[in-house]
């Protein structure tokens, strides 16, 4: 079976193009940028593309009359770079810069943007009174754009756009999207007024509100003939509100779009926006002295800055990720997803797919020899579904074929008959009596409760009570390398699975259960991975890869495309946190009640751990004598959820830290002071009554926050009046490790390799966090050798010992402790061996960068290099030392509790737009106390990266679902922060000291960076608007309303 290929025709004249287009089943194409997007969304492919790129008269930018003729084939990139357009048509140039991203602009054309009828250039072109040169079967014509849009004729070919400069005009342009740049348009406006003798002679206002752009004729009429200073801006605003075209969709409401259009035009043309000046946060000057932190930056830390070993190969593209691996005759695998959120499987027929030439194997649940269930905590997820599907991304079958095209074709031939079931799309409804069951065991996956004192009675005598429901979204990990890898059966019968992951040994154990194969017969390689953030903690593609490799006996690669990763991949559990907090007149916390409902999605994965961790952090770093906290995790048909950086603690910090600011306002107390009065005392028992580790630095972090210069920076209305600036802070308190209840094995080994490298073996994974550089730092530091002497070996069950998972901010401690504990014995063995060879007392020798030196010698000259030492020793006498231990645990066993914590204080300065309600981040200052930094660059990377991931979580990211389906199917609508969203400046500070008797060394900071970003931003928004948004990502419409209220 073959499908007809796409034909491309290349006319050289407009007449030829029109005649070809008239033959049907064809589509005119120039840059083609919208095509792929359309096809990805399921638009049919035409049989023929008519490439108009060779038609000369559609090219070039030329002066024409008193304006410019811009050929339809001109790319937006060429327009952007064209000096004449920049100088003479600044409104159009501004619109071009706000359209798509630079690389897309190099392909997309002006004609395509106009012909698409929804292009982001249309408001600017309408306000510029652009005309189109049109060719149609009826002949050539020059038509005003506005008229052409009104007629929307389909058989036309746009030849050129003619735009006349208006050098004296006052103009404005604004595109408002879902994030700061490269975003779908929520609203776009362009306005232009020309005056003569002080009176407006021409006014052209155009806007789009998510649909087609249009001129605003009635609003224009209010301007023409008036003097600029006589404009009644309120009247104009009202007129635009009424006239602006706007749609209502899942992203933004019609009301919001109209407001933005009116605000943007009024402000852009010189009008004033209503002002309010709330200031709930009274703090305006830094106070006290900061603790002895250092600013973590390359210039500040000097010699402690090291280039990570993997960065240059990554930049050059020479580092092979597991999804990059290709071999001759390798099969390509693909997974058939449910595509519907909830259904009973009636039958699965693979015969047609198997019969397709080029298909090597199709696997279904019938191919699973072991237990068709996996999950880190609860094994409730089938590797391949058999009785029902519980979310759109559920895996039903997988195919391996000679190439991607054949695999895709085969996938479509797998016939699955479903009997749809009612969709459970809301966790609260999932728990109601009579709800459809996602699992036969019931929709309540688990619940937790914790009581201390008598919260209910205490509320009655409290001076101040704050109660709110905080809602946090499902967040997508958005690792740039989607899930994937390859698998093959080795000549010795070992199944090799190379797929990005966060704990190879556990992946192996889970695969062993599914496949019914002994673990010793399975090798799992998990490094390097292109980002994980918790999203590769659970199994992803490994079961399908393994089954296909076993069934075919051949190497198979499988790499999810983004759209599949979106529907199939794990997300952050959405939460609804109902919190009631009481304090006395002095702001001392008396009682807190917390009730959490978390969305598990279809399968538990690590959801129970996430919820329990959230509740463990229910009071943050504060002491609350009376507590009643509870949480329920509900199964729904909303994707799958589980581990994500922060693991519930950052969601809870949002609620707790906003409550503190609100109580401070209620009690009339400074926000730093209220925290000082409630902060836990070092050395006391933790929130659950557990023992906690020494080196607590909360007071120091609070002091760092108090002394931060951010408080002295400008606040309130911006210079131009279109923004209001606020500052907020929040404390950060994050546990390390898996906790008291789950097994948390750790370990590693050092050995001298035959080539003289000191190999450091860890079962941890390099996912980008800087494991390799941290290993080099820790081992070199412990041994006294150089970083370059150390070769980290990671993430391979065949080569590395059990180190536990690369999650829960635990890796740093494991890396440090293995090095610290293994080093003395290993160094002793190295020196003893060297001493024998050199005929010297081992005690007179020492390890140094490169090899063995004389102890106490200043010369630094090597007596023997590590390579010489290794070469001189028989292979079985090469020194080695292994360490294994349980990650340090606390003593509390009634629930899961952490022993080790890392500390921080986060400050955010934000600018809230009075035009759009959007929040722009000016500064993010992160103070951290996590012990000595193993590697400064890795530490900085974790804090900065976590910070901006937290910014996304707070302001733009939402993997929202309706009826069990994701609203955003790819990165066109799922808004990962872009470079335009990142704060203007970031600063990371580290307080490195530990208590004298501290046995735990450096703390992990993988989650510290994200921990308090949300409440810092939200408290800053409250500083600017007078109200706390309780739902994230913060809805700009809510912000506009809050600004309105504060102005009233």
């Amino acid at each position, binding site marked *: 079976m073959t499908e007809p*290929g796409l034909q491309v025709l290349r006319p050289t004249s407009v007449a030829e193009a029109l005649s070809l287009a008239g033959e049907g089943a064809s589509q005119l194409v120039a840059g083609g940028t919208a095509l*792929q997007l359309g096809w990805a969304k399921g638009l049919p492919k035409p049989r023929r593309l008519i490439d108009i790129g060779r038609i000369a008269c559609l090219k070039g930018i030329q002066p024409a009359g008193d304006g410019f003729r811009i050929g339809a084939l001109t790319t937006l990139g060429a327009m952007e770079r064209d000096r004449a357009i920049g100088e003479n048509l600044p409104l159009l140039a501004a619109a071009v810069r706000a359209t798509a991203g630079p690389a897309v602009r190099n392909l997309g054309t002006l004609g395509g943007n106009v012909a698409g009828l929804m292009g982001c250039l249309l408001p600017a072109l309408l306000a510029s009174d652009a005309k189109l040169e049109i060719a149609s079967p009826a002949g050539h014509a020059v038509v005003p754009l506005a008229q052409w849009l009104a007629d929307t004729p389909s058989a036309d070919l746009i030849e050129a756009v003619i735009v006349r400069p208006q050098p004296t005009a006052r103009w404005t342009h604004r595109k408002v999207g879902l994030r700061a740049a490269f975003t779908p348009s929520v609203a776009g406006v362009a306005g232009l007024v020309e005056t003569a003798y002080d009176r407006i002679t021409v006014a052209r206002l155009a806007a789009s509100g998510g649909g087609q752009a249009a001129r605003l004729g009635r609003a224009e009429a209010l301007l023409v003939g008036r003097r600029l200073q006589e404009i009644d801006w309120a009247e104009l605003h009202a007129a635009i509100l009424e006239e602006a075209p706007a749609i209502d969709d899942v992203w933004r409401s019609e009301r919001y779009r109209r407001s933005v259009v009116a605000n943007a035009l009024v402000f852009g043309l010189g009008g004033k926006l209503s002002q309010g000046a709330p200031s709930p946060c009274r703090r305006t000057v830094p106070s006290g002295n900061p603790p002895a932190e250092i600013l973590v930056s390359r210039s500040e830390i000097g010699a402690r800055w090291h280039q990570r070993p993997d*960065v240059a190969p990554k930049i050059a593209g020479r580092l092979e990720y597991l999804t990059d691996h290709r071999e001759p005759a390798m099969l390509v695998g693909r997974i058939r997803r449910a595509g519907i959120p909830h259904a009973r499987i009636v039958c699965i027929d693979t015969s047609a797919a198997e019969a397709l030439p080029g298909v090597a194997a199709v696997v279904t649940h019938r191919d699973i020899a072991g237990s068709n269930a996996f999950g880190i905590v609860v094994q409730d997820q089938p590797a391949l579904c058999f009785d029902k599907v519980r979310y759109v991304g559920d895996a039903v079958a997988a195919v391996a074929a000679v190439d991607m095209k054949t695999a895709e074709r085969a996938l479509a031939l797998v016939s699955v008959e479903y009997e749809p079931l009612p969709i459970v799309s809301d966790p609260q409804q999932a728990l109601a009596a009579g709800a459809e069951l996602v699992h036969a065991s019931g929709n309540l996956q688990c619940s937790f409760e914790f009581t201390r004192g008598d919260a209910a009675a205490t509320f009655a005598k409290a001076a101040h009570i704050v109660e709110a429901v905080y809602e946090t979204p499902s967040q997508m990990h958005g690792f740039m*390398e989607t899930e994937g890898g390859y698998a093959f059966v080795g000549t010795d019968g070992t199944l090799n699975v190379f797929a990005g992951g966060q704990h190879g040994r556990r992946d192996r154990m889970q695969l062993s259960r599914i496949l019914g194969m002994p673990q010793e017969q399975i090798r799992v390689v998990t490094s390097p991975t292109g980002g994980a953030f918790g999203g590769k903690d659970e199994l992803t593609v490994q079961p399908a890869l393994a089954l296909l490799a076993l069934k075919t006996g051949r190497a198979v690669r499988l790499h999810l495309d983004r759209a599949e990763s979106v529907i199939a991949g794990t997300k952050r559990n959405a939460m609804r946190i109902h919190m009631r907090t009481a304090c006395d007149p002095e702001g001392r916390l008396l009682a807190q009640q917390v009730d959490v409902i978390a969305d598990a999605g279809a399968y538990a994965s690590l959801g129970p751990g996430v919820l329990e961790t959230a509740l463990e952090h229910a009071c943050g770093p504060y002491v609350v004598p009376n507590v009643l906290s509870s949480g329920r995790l509900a199964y729904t048909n909303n994707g799958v959820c589980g581990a994500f950086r922060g693991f519930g603690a950052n969601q809870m910090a949002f609620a707790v830290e906003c409550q503190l600011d609100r109580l401070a306002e209620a009690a009339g107390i400074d926000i730093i002071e209220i925290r000082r009065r409630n902060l836990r005392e070092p050395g006391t028992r933790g929130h659950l009554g557990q023992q906690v580790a020494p080196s607590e630095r909360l007071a120091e972090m609070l002091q760092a926050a108090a002394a931060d210069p951010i408080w002295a920076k400008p606040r309130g209305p911006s210079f131009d009046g279109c923004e209001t600036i606020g500052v907020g802070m929040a404390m950060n308190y994050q546990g390390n490790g898996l906790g008291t209840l789950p097994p948390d094995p750790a370990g590693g080994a050092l050995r001298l390799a035959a080539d003289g490298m000191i190999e450091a073996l860890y079962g941890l994974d390099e996912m*980008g966090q800087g494991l390799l550089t941290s290993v080099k730092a820790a081992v070199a530091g412990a041994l006294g050798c150089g970083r370059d002497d150390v070769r980290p070996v990671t993430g391979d069950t065949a080569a590395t010992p059990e180190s536990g998972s690369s999650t829960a901010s635990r890796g740093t401690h494991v890396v440090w402790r293995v090095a610290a504990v293994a080093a003395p014995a290993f160094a002793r063995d190295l020196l003893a061996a060297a001493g024998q060879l050199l005929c010297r007392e081992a005690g007179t020798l020492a390890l140094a960068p490169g090899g063995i030196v004389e102890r106490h010698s200043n010369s630094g000259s090597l007596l023997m290099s590590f390579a010489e030492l290794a070469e001189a020793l028989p292979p079985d006498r090469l020194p080695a030392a292994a360490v294994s231990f349980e990650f340090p645990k606390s003593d509390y066993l009634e629930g899961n509790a952490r022993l080790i914590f890392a500390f921080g204080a986060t400050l955010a300065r934000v600018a809230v737009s009075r035009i759009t309600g959007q929040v722009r981040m000016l500064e993010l200052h992160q103070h951290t106390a996590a012990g000595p930094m193993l590697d400064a660059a890795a530490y900085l*990377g974790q804090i900065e990266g976590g910070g901006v991931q937290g910014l996304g979580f707070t302001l733009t990211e939402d993997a929202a679902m309706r009826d069990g389906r994701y609203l955003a199917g790819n990165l066109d609508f799922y808004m990962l922060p872009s470079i335009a969203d990142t704060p203007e400046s970031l600063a990371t500070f580290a307080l490195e000291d530990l208590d004298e008797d501290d046995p735990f060394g450096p703390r992990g900071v993988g989650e510290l960076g994200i921990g308090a970003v949300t409440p810092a931003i939200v408290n800053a928004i409250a500083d600017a608007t007078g109200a706390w948004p309780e739902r994230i990502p913060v809805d700009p419409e809510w912000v506009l309303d809050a600004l309105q209220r504060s102005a009233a």
Partner: protein
Amino acid sequence: MSAEIAITFNLNGCRRALAVPAELRLIDLLRDHFGMTAAKMACGIGRCGACSVLMDDRAVNGCLVMSWQLDGATIITPEGFDDLPEADVLREALASENAFQCGYCAPGITVALTALMLENPAPDESQIRAALEGNICRCTGYHSIIRGALAAVEALARGIPT
């Protein structure tokens, strides 16, 4: 039979003449046909920049360019950057700054920045930010990349070592 079209283009300095399906994407051509995997695949719809390459010295998304658009073009992938002195300086500056973590976006970002520096060897921070609006990095928060790019601008100002 699936219709194929004949194309000739220059890839990293080598002339390539092929017969391929018209809608085959450049990124698939590179990764699956030529085994050149420096350009990465991450969204497939031109929204992340991981697959960027230079096409006639301009950065373009490898997932948006189809083979029918390649005829006559000059393509430089990250594998071909060894021959570009500007790219060399840039890559070294980015590496010294530890600009990337997982690194999956790094080749694409290097392409975007190289395209910028070929056009404007002394961009300021706002121009660097504008040039990277189409590239998503999930690990770093972007500032390490900005610092690396600014260091490259300084290094370029000092001159390209010969």
